[in-house]
């Protein structure tokens, strides 16, 4: 295989594995802050117990995010040297600001957040939690700004074949950035809500009825139930933004081969790019026109307008459908669970059983969504500025293939270990219930000097 497709697969594998963990830590930091603030306000030890259970998940996810993130910082140079050569003047400062304003903040206060409960005052410990959660979110801000700039570049000019910044405000807040940022932050919130709800449901199924389980379960379910309709709305707005700025991506997402009015909403199809048609299509008449243009006679862009300049249809079409399908399932499950928790103060067993695998539904939807938008950007790396094929490095295909294979094996093993530990932590928390000792928790949080000081 040629180095281009191998490099794309390698970068795709690395960034897919990486994004799983920031998706958790971005929102989990804020959930931990919520647990901490409830504990501060009520003094109820069940809240701090929930905090200690989930801070371990945070620590592990953060470590996975850091080490896979280090990999990403090298991959730009090892696999895509043409990227920085062409747009380094834009991408560089954005990445630099991410490192300076987010990475160090997170990393320095993470230690205090994780291990400092008995070493600093309660207030400083809460502050450390705020700073870590803030750091993860700031990090998301910068990287989404860069990614969005690659999708919808603005605020620059090409001089001597290289992109130069003209207007930093326009670069950071480029046309798709606010939509993508909101969409991603909500995705993170949903991923964490379902993870917490799912692992709490697992505890519920093993017979755990402890206060800390209920508190985590309610937090997960209610947050999910609130966020999912907001996400569906935000996603729709993001789609309309894409229609305006990247119509060829919409054409691929809808598998619409010809521009025109009265375009149906395709529910199922096997897009055939060679024949330029959909096989086994099931569609709602006028649906796409209605969704995208709010009128049955609305004109929807078709792939025929972008010969040789549109993304591969099959993965974009299906990535989008998997994301939306997962979203609808999330809506049904979270609202049902919220109903039972609110009215019956219990969970039916089948629903709890369904919630356990749904713990990973956020990951599925997030990955499917990213595949839609990133593959949907092809053949461009930076829309209209740099083609992916022109950025690839001179490394031999065999080297890329070998390292890709080892990365994949490593990632599969790490994923198994990670999920194993999550289940182990949930079962351990279920066994401990409300009775495990909390040596550091007193009526008032204390500051305790370390031995040797």
């Amino acid at each position, binding site marked *: 295989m040629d180095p281009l497709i191998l490099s794309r697969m390698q970068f795709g594998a690395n960034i897919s594995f990486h994004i799983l963990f920031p998706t958790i830590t971005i929102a989990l930091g804020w959930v931990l802050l919520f647990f901490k603030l409830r504990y501060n306000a009520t003094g109820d030890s069940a809240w*701090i117990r929930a905090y*200690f259970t989930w*801070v*371990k998940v945070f*620590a*592990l996810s953060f*470590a*996975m995010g*850091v*080490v896979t993130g*280090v*990999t990403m*910082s*090298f991959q730009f*140079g*090892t696999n895509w*040297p*043409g990227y*920085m*050569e062409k747009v*380094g*003047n*834009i991408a*560089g*400062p954005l*990445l*630099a*600001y991410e*490192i*300076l*304003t987010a*990475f*160090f*903040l997170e*990393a*320095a*206060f993470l*230690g205090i957040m*994780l*291990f*400092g*409960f*008995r*070493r*600093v005052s309660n207030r400083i410990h809460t502050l450390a939690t705020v700073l870590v959660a803030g750091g993860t979110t700031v990090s998301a801000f910068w990287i989404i700004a860069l990614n969005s700039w690659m999708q919808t570049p603005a605020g620059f000019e090409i001089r001597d074949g290289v992109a*130069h*910044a003209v207007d930093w405000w326009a670069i950071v807040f480029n046309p798709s950035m606010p939509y993508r940022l909101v969409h991603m932050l909500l995705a993170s919130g949903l991923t964490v809500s379902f993870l917490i709800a799912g692992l709490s449901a697992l505890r519920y199924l093993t017979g755990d009825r402890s206060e800390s389980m209920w508190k985590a379960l309610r937090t997960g379910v209610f947050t999910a139930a609130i966020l999912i309709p907001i996400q569906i709305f935000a996603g729709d707005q993001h789609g309309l933004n894409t229609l305006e700025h990247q119509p060829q991506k919409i054409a691929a997402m809808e598998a619409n081969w010809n521009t025109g009015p009265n375009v149906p909403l395709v529910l199922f199809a096997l897009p055939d790019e060679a024949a330029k048609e959909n096989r086994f299509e099931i569609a709602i008449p006028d649906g796409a026109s209605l969704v995208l243009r709010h009128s049955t006679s609305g004109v929807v862009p078709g792939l025929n307008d972008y010969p040789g300049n549109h993304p591969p249809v099959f993965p974009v079409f299906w990535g989008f459908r998997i994301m939306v399908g997962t979203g609808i399932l999330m809506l049904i499950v979270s609202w049902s669970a919220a109903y039972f928790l609110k009215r019956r103060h219990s969970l039916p067993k089948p629903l709890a059983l369904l919630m356990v695998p749904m713990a990973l539904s956020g990951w599925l939807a997030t990955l499917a969504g990213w595949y839609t938008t990133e593959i949907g950007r092809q053949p461009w790396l930076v829309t209209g500025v740099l083609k992916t094929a022109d950025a690839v*490095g*001179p*490394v031999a295909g065999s080297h890329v293939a070998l390292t890709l294979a080892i*990365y994949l094996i*490593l990632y599969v093993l*790490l994923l198994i*270990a*990670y999920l194993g530990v999550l289940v182990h932590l949930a079962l351990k928390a279920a066994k401990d219930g409300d009775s495990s000792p*909390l040596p*550091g928790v007193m009526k008032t949080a204390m500051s305790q000097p*370390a031995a*040797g*000081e």
Partner: protein
Amino acid sequence: MSFDWPTALPLIFAGLMGLAILIYVILDGFDLGIGILFAAAEDAEQDTMIAAIGPFWDANETWLVLAVGLLLVAFPLAHGVILTALYIPVFVLLVGLILRGVAFDFRAKVPTERKHRWNRIFFLGSIIASLAQGYMLGVYVLGLDVGFGGMAFGVLVAFCLAAAYAAMGAAWVIYKTEGELQKKAVRWLRTALVLTALGMAAVSLATPFASPRIFDKWFVWPQMLYLSPLPILSALLFGWLWRQTFHLPKPGDRHSLTPFLTLAAIFALGFAGLAWSFYPFVVPNKLTIWQAASATESLAIILAGTVVVLPVIIFYSFYAYRVFGGKATDLTYD
């Protein structure tokens, strides 16, 4: 010489990048070193050693991200050339860093019967990452030459850098622990010092002889005179630290941080020597820092942020170290 930004900015960024690499090597050096020393430690000692680095390693590794990030953003051309030339060693380094980073967390969270497996992975990841860094340093020193001689030299430097990290790790253990483990760490330090000195001597001798340009920078009068403190001071510090290992630990735990600081000083001296050798090149003999630099306006906007943020980073890093100061105790979440 008149001052102008297009000339000054690449120089400033080269300095910042050098600083980031030096801080990284010193800070992650001690926690990688502790990973290497895992092979020689008992179970209970391993827990203490982990506790000595637990709150810090994340932030330590962030300096690597900053160093690579600065290379990426300030010298994008060099980033591409260096990293594609070092494709496989970089990959090995990353696998090592991934393994040790996650092992660190997994070993504390898996059921106890699996802890040993993750301890082994922690050791393996640490030694792999250290060897890869040493190999890359060796190959870089020879101008990214990947002939057989270059590879052999890379392997030599790899082992010596791993030893240097082990020495840093041992020095950190001396600072953060007491009793039997501290005494053991003194012995580790003594062994590792020999290999470290050997490695530094090898790199110092090989660098000028590998390149006539570098040779001329060192062995010309009067530069020789100005530069002579670098090797002389390094040698004195090595000798002094070696003698200290026969007197440590001292009553009342005096001077427990001294070995670490001494090693950090030796690293800084060695690093200064390397920097002098390679200046003004960022890719040896191919690209100078000015040829590889980003556009002036992009560097300016990064510098503005750096000037504001870096002191803050250094301040709260010190704070984090202070919170977890003193001898290492059990690390607990609650």
